[in-house]
């Protein structure tokens, strides 16, 4: 059993009581709320005559359903408009903090928590969204919950929880040029499988994560859930503190010194024990793409698609055969043979400023070479939040994208899950910087998704097919500061 890890320290500090079921009543320091998984939970509170127990620890925004072309109200989609009205009504009635368009702070919930400084080391964080694992980048225990659990957190600021196991995923060495945190994520999931992390929290450790920026760490922790791990985290360090200092909700004045002292003590001890330890070498990781229908079905951009006949496990083989049928691809094909119709840059995985800079650097390099987005490709960039959008425009990134033939949109989840007008049509194939390539994920039952880094998406948009991003020299990876 894990001992003296950051996970253990946070768990112990937040355990309220042992429940009659044998579960732990765990206090949730920060509850993030969005429009899709909360309306039923607020209704359940009404039915039971309960109020929100800690509205000062509850922060809401809207991201999944918002259109990204025009956010003028009322929305054209009447269902989306009703959902917007529900979150507005519920946050007002229950006194919950709400970051709407007027606040200038709206955005994807996992992007605004960190950028506002709400996400702080040592916290437990829950949200009705599986990518809550993102916040683990700050040395938090953060995980997704369902709507009935959202009700529990609203009503009590607590959850009934069973302890997790802890696996240390250690990667040492230096990443190759052009290899980004997204590639590291896809590599880990490819090696350990989409179910490899069930029951675990992942502690990301070693040179690669130590050298990674906070935004890179967020990308990796975001994708923990795609490998089956409900939570993933990095130990907090000077990079973490530097990111947080001065942010709106971060501790100020004497509280800052107290907080940093506290945060330093949180990191897993040198003699910490883990339920499992796995090590990889940074040098083995290449730019990756997924070719199938789970985030584990991936290859390096220069490899060939796998031969199903070489897969021993029958269940896995059937999954791969299903993937080939859906994707209309063939074993042995090269990724660079796959033409794309749509290029999507954004999402809670890769919709932050460094992601946009990385993609813009490809767009800029292409423009300098006289190239633009392939005319057969619809390419669009969706900043993760209003603040990311503003920062990008201050740097002129919008102009770089527009000049290269990308559309420049408003903040939201967009085509990551296609609960809004941004959807694939028919069997269109997208290069996407998001997190899931599940069948139907991007809005069309026959639509096809290739996951990759934002820089790789930008390169694919210009080439019109998957291509190795390393042909462009000025790649900023987010992996090195």
């Amino acid at each position, binding site marked *: 059993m894990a001992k003296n890890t950051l996970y253990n320290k946070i768990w112990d500090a937040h355990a*309220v*009581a042992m429940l*009659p*079921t*044998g*579960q732990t*009543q765990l*206090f949730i*320091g920060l509850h993030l709320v969005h429009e*899709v998984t909360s*309306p*039923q939970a607020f209704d359940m509170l009404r039915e*039971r005559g309960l109020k929100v*127990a800690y509205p*000062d*620890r509850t*922060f809401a925004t809207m991201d*999944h*359903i918002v259109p990204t072309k025009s956010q003028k109200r009322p929305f054209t989609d009447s*269902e989306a408009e*009703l*959902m917007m009205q529900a979150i507005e009504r519920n946050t007002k009635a229950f006194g919950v903090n709400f970051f709407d368009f007027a606040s200038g702070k709206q955005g994807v919930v996992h992007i605004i928590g960190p950028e506002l400084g709400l996400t*702080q080391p*040592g916290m437990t964080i829950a949200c*009705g*969204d*599986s990518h*809550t694992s993102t916040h683990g980048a700050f040395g938090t225990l953060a*995980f*997704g919950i*369902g*709507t*009935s*659990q959202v009700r*529990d957190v609203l009503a*009590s600021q*607590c*959850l*009934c929880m069973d302890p997790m196991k802890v696996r240390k995923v250690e990667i040492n060495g230096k990443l190759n040029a052009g290899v980004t945190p997204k590639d590291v994520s896809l590599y880990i999931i490819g090696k350990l499988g*989409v*179910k490899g992390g*069930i*029951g675990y929290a992942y502690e990301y450790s070693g040179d690669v994560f130590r050298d990674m920026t906070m935004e890179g760490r967020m990308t990796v922790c975001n994708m923990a859930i795609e490998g*089956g791990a*409900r939570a993933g985290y990095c130990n907090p360090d000077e990079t973490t503190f530097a990111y947080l200092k001065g942010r709106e*909700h971060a*501790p100020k004045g004497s509280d*800052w010194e*107290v*907080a940093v002292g*506290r945060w330093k003590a949180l990191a897993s001890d040198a003699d910490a024990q883990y339920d499992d330890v796995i090590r990889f070498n940074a040098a083995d990781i290449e730019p990756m793409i997924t070719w199938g229908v789970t985030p584990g079905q991936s290859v390096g951009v220069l490899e060939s698609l796998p031969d199903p006949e070489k897969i021993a496990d029958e*269940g896995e083989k059937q*999954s791969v055969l299903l993937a080939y049928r859906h994707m209309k691809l063939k074993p042995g094909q090269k990724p660079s043979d796959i033409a794309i119709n749509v290029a999507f840059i954004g999402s809670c995985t890769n919709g932050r400023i460094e992601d946009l800079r990385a993609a813009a650097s490809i767009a800029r390099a292409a423009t300098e070479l006289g190239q633009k987005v392939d005319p057969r490709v619809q390419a669009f960039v969706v900043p993760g939040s209003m603040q990311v959008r503003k920062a990008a425009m201050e740097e002129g990134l919008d102009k770089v994208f527009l000049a290269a033939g990308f559309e420049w949109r408003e903040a939201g989840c967009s085509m990551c*899950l296609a*609960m809004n007008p941004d959807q694939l049509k028919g069997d269109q194939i997208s290069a996407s910087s998001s997190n*899931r390539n*599940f*069948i*139907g994920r991007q809005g069309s*039952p026959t639509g096809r998704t290739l996951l990759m880094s934002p820089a790789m998406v930008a390169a694919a948009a210009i080439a019109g097919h998957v291509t190795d991003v390393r042909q462009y020299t000025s790649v900023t990876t987010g992996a090195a500061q």
Partner: protein
Amino acid sequence: MSRVTTITGRAVPVVGDDIDTDRIIPARYLKEITFSRMGEYPFYDERFAPDGTKKDHPFNRAEYQGAAILLGNVNFGCGSSREHAPQALVRWGIKAVVAESFAEIFAGNCVMLGTPAVVASKEDLSALQKLAIEHPGTEFVVNLDKMEIHAGHGAGQTMVVKVSMPPSRRNALVNGTWDSTALLVANSALVAAKAAQLPHPNGRQA
């Protein structure tokens, strides 16, 4: 709250690994602000062509209408945390899910609805699925007291399969405490004491 100890009914096999919650319920149905219609949507895009014509799927076949037990495989319910997925299954009529393994959030969501999500071995699930495919009228019994599934077609042919689930979740179901809000709210004084010890998201250090 009701105790959940025994689930009896026919079983519907949904064969395949890594069946994600987007496949169980496509995101467009998450635009509804109540769960009331979710029972119309499970596996929608696998059951219906875009023009509405029915496709071949276990949830469409006549012999599985009214089934109470879903038989899945590896990593069932992976992906999105959407409770709409178990809501859709439960409102369609599913009262227990059996699989080789479950995604954590999905399994947790099931227990919140009073629906057992129990694990059986690969071999046992193959045998149970085979039984449900060859003899769809077979009655299955999921017994949480014994942590067994009993199923049989014909006299003297009863199969008995061992199943497991985290003990705390089993306790919550068999003792009728799976709706956890009341348990948590009852400790509000302890919660207030804990909150006072911990830093606040506004930066205040306790």
